[in-house]
């Protein structure tokens, strides 16, 4: 094999696989979003039945109140869950960055929720929130916070926040681990110089540690934001988008309109609109990676 062709030969299997399972389907999804396709996929065999509608499906998405509501819920879920995961994750990283006996063990334990399958996490919290027997439900009542047994997943606002808590429990470790790894690679001099000045610990954190951690913080935030924006599994199990659509986020709306109601074309258009937002995060992420490398 010639020297010039060898790199391309090494890349070929990967790019063929990616073309077949990602690129071609992406193009196909675009095509589907321009026609009028329902669950009856046989329609695709006959071009006369394609019923080309141009951007009608996209227009329908953008004029659909359900879409804007789902977008609002998705943004709320993303902002609150990522915000909490970052705050708690930073605290955890700071604690685990201190020297204490059994640090390795505690770090291992902290990792467990992250390794927990999302579906199991959802099942666990759904049970904790059970309106008749859930530990959280009973606890809220016994503490006098609620009158009687309150159905946490039965009203939109509490359901959304309850799901966020479940998500935070699982994903905080991810943020903590990235921040901890970054803290441990920080130059010691940075801290020590601050100590000589007699700077208080809190000031030292905001003026020295935080700026040095900025690249790692950005990576953790962007990666979590992209994941949170796509949230699906935990909603599917815990509320199925309910009550009355109160926890219906974009991924779930896409799933529901295509896989449950069989409107493939509308679902595809919706998925593309959703990807537009992900694209923004992706561009930010790639830019950070390249800036970190310089």
């Amino acid at each position: 094999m010639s020297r010039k062709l060898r790199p391309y030969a090494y890349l070929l299997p990967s790019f063929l696989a990616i073309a077949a399972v990602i690129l071609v389907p992406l193009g196909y999804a675009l095509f589907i979003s321009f026609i009028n396709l329902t669950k009856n996929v046989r329609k695709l065999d006959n071009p006369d039945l394609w019923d080309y509608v141009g951007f009608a499906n996209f227009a329908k998405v953008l004029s659909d109140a359900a879409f804007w509501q789902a977008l609002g819920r998705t943004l709320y879920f993303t902002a609150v869950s990522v915000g909490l995961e970052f705050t708690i994750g930073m605290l955890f990283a700071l604690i685990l960055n201190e020297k204490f006996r059994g640090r390795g063990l505690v770090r291992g334990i902290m990792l467990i929720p992250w390794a927990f399958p999302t579906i199991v996490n959802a099942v666990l919290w759904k049970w904790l929130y059970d309106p008749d027997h859930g530990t959280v439900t009973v606890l809220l009542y016994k503490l006098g916070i609620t009158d009687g047994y309150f159905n946490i997943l039965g009203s939109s606002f509490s359901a959304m926040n309850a799901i966020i808590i479940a998500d935070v429990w699982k994903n905080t470790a991810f943020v903590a681990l990235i921040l901890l790894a970054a803290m441990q690679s920080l130059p010691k001099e940075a801290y020590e110089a601050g100590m000589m000045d007699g700077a208080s610990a809190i000031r030292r954190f905001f003026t020295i540690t935080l700026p040095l951690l900025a690249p790692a913080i950005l990576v953790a935030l962007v990666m979590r934001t992209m994941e949170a924006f796509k949230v699906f599994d935990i909603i599917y199990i815990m509320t199925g988008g309910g009550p009355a659509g109160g926890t219906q986020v974009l991924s779930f709306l896409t799933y529901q309109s295509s896989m449950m109601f069989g409107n493939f074309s509308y679902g595809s258009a919706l998925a593309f609109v959703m990807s537009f937002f992900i694209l923004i995060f992706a561009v930010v992420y790639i830019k950070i990676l390249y800036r970190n490398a310089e």
Partner: protein
Amino acid sequence: MERTKPQKILTYLGVLGVLLFTLGPLLLLVVATFSSSADLNGKSLHLVPEKWTLDNYRNVFSGQASDGSLPPFMTAMKNSVITALSATALSLFVGMFAAYAYARFRFRGKNALLISVLGFRMVPEVVLLIPLYVIFARMGMINSKPSLVLIYTVFNLPFVIWMLQGFFRSLPKSMEESAQMDGVSPLGVLFRFVLPLSLPGLVAAGIFVLLLSWDEFMFASIFTSTYDAKTITVAISEFSKRGLIDFGMQITGGLLASLPPIILALFLQKFIISGLSEGSEKG
């Protein structure tokens, strides 16, 4: 650094907080799996069961699948093991060639191709759900393990390539160069000299593919309809649809299904941390 007593106390209080946050829900889960359904349906905080029982475990391991072979739980676990392991092996094998090309060869269009790999990693899965379903349905490839393996392999490929190329880059070039001078073929260099040194990188990338494949639910739920292919996440989600009484079974099955990824994560902790920080470096 000298530490004062209050500082030490603060640290230990913090550690206590971390442990409570993490272990609280976990302990409730473990206790619940050993509780009877009467206990679970009671109005207590479920901190300690009135009577410890193995009923839930017995229920999970009994029952027959539609084809009468193994209990659904065991069949789904088996499907998950086969699917996740195959996807991991395949994506590592295919991805390592591309990663090596990026790490060691100079060629036209390299930067653009490398950025495109990162781009593929960002494509939201839900966009691919509909076209892949339509394509696979028309080809009669729904409800088969190989279809899921193919999807998981390719979805994880960009990440594998990205991580391995970073790892290959960190290896010293000298050995490869001298092997080349001795007339070892390029493939020989890769297999006999680079790969043996790359075990930590392969393990780190492999864990992530394993964990993600084990965790995947959206595609598994759409692309499987019987226990020929149903994975464990799908099986657990269905325990719930039968009604309230199955909560015990669901959480018990869930706990058992969590053990493989948790054990893997605990034993291979240092690889996970290197994998996570790889995501924050350009390589």
